[in-house]
Structure formats: structure tokens, C-alpha cells
């Protein structure tokens, strides 16, 4: 169920990025895609009723720590991915602002100097 919702979120983001005409809405759609992927990563490491993955040496030997704690690796990866997507989004917002200054609009149908 959770995974299905996550997939739905990804699809919403992709749909938005492909169909929206407004620069800001496109940026938001990209953010939604990134959030969907991050959520998926978190869910990979999640464990129902798990404990925080913090341990001291005395606890390790023969304990049930490893079978009770959530997986810390995806959490570390998501932190990194969030920082990266923050950088990319900030850059995209900056470019969108410059585009607004030159064209006076956020509508991509009116920003058309280039053709594929």
C-alpha cells in the first residue's frame, strides 16, 4: 500500500513535469519526483516498531540489536539526496527568476527562442 502511494506520487510528479506550462509548477513537479524517490528509499530501510539505529559497543555482542533496529544506510543516503536536490532546485529557481526578468513571464509557451 505504502509503496503504491509512493509510486503514485512519482507518477504525479512526472505528469506535472511533462504537462505543466509554468516554470514554477515544473520546478515543483521535479521536487515531487525527488520526494517520491526519497520516500521510497526511507521505506526500504523502515521497520515497523523498530528502534533507532544507535548502538554502543557493549550492546552489540549477542544482542537482538540488528533484528530490531531500522536500517540506517538509506537514511544516510536520503540525507545526501536531499542536500543534492536542494542544490539543484535552488539553481533551477535562480534560472527561472532570471528568465522572468528577461521575458516577464513564467509561461514556457512564451519562452521559445530555442526549438528541438
Amino acid at each position: 500500500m505504502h509503496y503504491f502511494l509512493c509510486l503514485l506520487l512519482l507518477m504525479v510528479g512526472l505528469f506535472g513535469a511533462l504537462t505543466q506550462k509554468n516554470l514554477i509548477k515544473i520546478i515543483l513537479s521535479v521536487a515531487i519526483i525527488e520526494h517520491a524517490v526519497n520516500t521510497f528509499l526511507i521505506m526500504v530501510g523502515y521497520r515497523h516498531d523498530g528502534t533507532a539505529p544507535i548502538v554502543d559497543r557493549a550492546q552489540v555482542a549477542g544482542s537482538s540489536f540488528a533484528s530490531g533496529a531500522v536500517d540506517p544506510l538509506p537514511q544516510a543516503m536520503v540525507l545526501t539526496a536531499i542536500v543534492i536536490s536542494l542544490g539543484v532546485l535552488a539553481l533551477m529557481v535562480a534560472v527561472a527568476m532570471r528568465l522572468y526578468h528577461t521575458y516577464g513571464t513564467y509561461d514556457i509557451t512564451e519562452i521559445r527562442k530555442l526549438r528541438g
Partner: protein
Amino acid sequence: MKLLPLMIAIPLSVAFILPLLPKKRPRMADCLAVLATLALLALAAMLIGQSGVYALGGWRPPVGIVLVLDGLSWLVLITVALVSFLVTVFSARYMEQYTARGRYYALFMLMVAGMNGAVLTGDMFNLYVFIEVAAVASYALVAFGCHEEELEASFKYAVLGSIASSFILLGIALMYCLFGTVNMAHLGQKVSASGLNRAAIFSLVLFIAGFGLKAALVPFHAWLPDAHPSAPAPISAMLSGVLIKAIGVYALIRVLFNVFGVTAQVATALMVLGTISMVVAILMALIQWDLKRLLAYSSISQIGYVMLGFGVGGAVLAAGGSPVIAALGFLGALFHLVNHAVFKSLLFLSSGALEYATGTRQLKEMGGLGKEMPVTAGASLVASLAIGGVPPLNGFFSKLIIILACVSSGHYGFALAAVLVSIFTLAVYMKVQKYAFLGKPAEGRKSVHEVPAAMRIPMTLLAVLCLGMSLMLLPGPKKRVLDPAVQVLMDRDAYIQSVMGVASALGAGQETDMKIAEN
């Protein structure tokens, strides 16, 4: 091996120093950037013939991140180092048109650091991080001039690029979910033990789409013809010359061949994608009148050749055919990858020289420049003949090898397409020569001067490389440079062994930590 992290550390630290230099002394930034890329080139040259694994922070694989140097990563590493050195030399004069050169070089160095990291790393998530470092720097560099088209191209590139990155990250998350590791060699081991189920195949598709978008394969190419021409010429040379190869082609090939192991379906997908890219892009290139846009389309077409070569090799390998033919396909693809880096960066630099001298990129507004700019014209002619596949230049041999591999493995249709596209490529570049350098000056064109020496020297060096690189196929250099790279693709188990073998070789001090991670 101790020197390996320097390939990432040098450009990264220089990138942070550069914006701090005094703005009134732009020459300092030029010197520092050229010195840094020269150091990288020397370092990469020193590593020739070596291979090994560096465990970052002493954490052994599969827990820690490893840097892996083998024939394949060395080949891409030296290509990146060579092109980035010559491009920084060229930038010193060319970038005088722009302000904020410290920041330009800072982004440039960040891009180089990202590429070197992506090439060296042996860890899937680390690969994603380095790809993003290189990609973010390239989004910013495309918008560097801050004109309308540049901003628009950069936005398009950034949106498509981040969607591609999200696909790659989703693929990595799926692989972690299935196999519980992100180390490439460990992942490879587990994949060969358990085989691919449907979820793993889905992540394979995500990787092909994600890296395919970064490598601008048709139908994922829409951003490239906007982004590459909009960047300043030296950056176009970097983007077309090495960026799409390091974070697109190389990363895809590494993941497909060393982690997943190539299957017949994947090989067919590569061949089909490659051929479509080759054919569609060269037809688009034919009708362009903007010189840099023409070059950008031609880049997509040439990447198609590289993919076709890898695909043919993979198909033979997956079908259990003759290893000699498989090696031929890989050899052609790798040789063409290096060749394309050389002649496409030369073509973009010469287009930059033309723009610097005449102030236009439109072929129809040039004409007769051959007499006024003999060095640029000569360098451009050599590169055009090389990319058009005229013997005995390097492009002829790499294309010939790819076509031979197609024919000898029975893929006659693909071979025919490759031959036809080669003829069209020659036609495209004859058009460039005719309209830019030969004939009469276009009406209203002012007389121009040859570009300064700092721009002529890198172009001349690259032209000499185009002429001389065919020698790499002689038995001696081939054995040292190209064969080790081919071997990495042929032998997946050797790659896994070389990394996982380090796990037992490194000290036993982290036993307890290992236990936690494995549980």
C-alpha cells in the same frame, strides 16, 4: 594507489580556492586552473598500466566506499584529464569576453571533480553523488552567459537532468532493496548468485533510461542540441567531448557490464538505441545552419556509434559467441569514445575560435575564412576528416572496427546503417568546410584576424592527436592502453574479484562493525 583520491581532491579543493582569488587579477585564476588540470593530466599519465582498489578511510568493501582503478576507468580518466587541460588553456583567452572568471573555473573544476569521481568510484550511491556534482556544475555552466537562450537551455537541461538522476536513484534504491548492498562488485556477486527477477529488470530499465538521458541517446536527447551550443565554447567542448561520456556512457556501461552482466535483451536494446541515435541525429545535423547546433547533433550521432559497438560486443558475449568478435566490438566502441572526445572537442574549440573572431555562429554569415584564419581552418579540416572517417585518421579506424564487429557477428543491417551514417557525417562536415572556410566571404562580413596563440596551441595539439591516434592500434600501445579496458568489459568476474579480494586483504580491525552491517 595512494595517489588515487588526489584525482578528486585536487579539482575539488581548487574549485573552492578559485572564487576566493582577487577579482581584479583574473590571470591568477587562469594560472591556477591551468596548473590544476596539468597536475591532473600528469597524475593520470603516471597511473598508466596500474590497477587497484583504494578503500576510502580504510573501510573495506563492501561496507566502505572504494575507488577502483582498472583499464576502463583509466582510459576515461586520461581522456577527461587531457581534454580538460587543453580546454583550460583555451579558456584563458576565450573567457576574456566574460566577467567572473574565478567562478567559471570553479564550476569547471567542480565538473572535473564530479567526472573523475564518477569514473573512479566502485559504489552505486557514490556514483549518483558524483554524477550530480558534475551535472549541477554543468547546468550552471550552460547558463553562464545569462542570455535568454542560455537560461532557457539551462532550465530545460536541469529539469530533464534531475528527472534522469531521480530515475538513477530509484534504480539504486531498488537494487539496495533487493540485494542489500550498494557496492558495485558486491552487487555483481549477489546478482550472479541469485539471477535477475522482475524488480531487478525494472531497475535495469531505470538505469538505461537515466544514464541514456545523461548520454543523450535518441529518444532521450531533446536537451542536448539546446544545452551544448548555449554554453561558452570551451564548455561545449567539455560537455560534448567528455561529460556525456563520463557520466552517461561510461556509467551505463560499467553498471550494465560489471554489475548486472550483459544479457541478450540488454545488448539488443543498446544496439537499437545506438542505431536510432546515429541515424536520426545525423539527419538533424544535415539541416542545421547554426554551427554549434550542428556539432551538437553530430555528437548524439557519434555516441550512437559507441553504443552500437558496446551492444554488438555484448550481444556476442551474451550469446556465448567468439570472444575475439566481442572484444572487437568493445575495442571499436572504446577507441571511438576516445577519438570522439578528441575530435569533437577540437571542433567545438574551432567553432569557439570562429565565434571569437567573427562574432557569429551562423554558417551562412561566414565564408572564405580559410585564408584569414589558417590555423583554425587547418585544425577544423583535420577534425572534420577524422569524424567523417577518412583514412588514415583515427575516426576511420574506430568506425571500421565497429562495422567489422557488426559484420562478423552477422548483424548486417546495423553494419549497413553505420556505413551510411558515416557517409552522411562526411557530407555534414563538408558542408561546414564549404560554408565556413572555402568560397567567398558572406556579404557584409568584416575581415577578421586569426585568434591568439593561447587559443591556437590547444587546437593544434588536438589536431596532431587526431592525426597520431591511429597509432594506438599498433600492437604495443594497444596492449598497454586499449586491451586492459576491453578486458574489464569481457571479464565481469575479474572485476568482482579485484574489489572483493581487497576485503580479505585489508586489516581485520573492523570485525565488529562488519558484523552489524552484514546483519
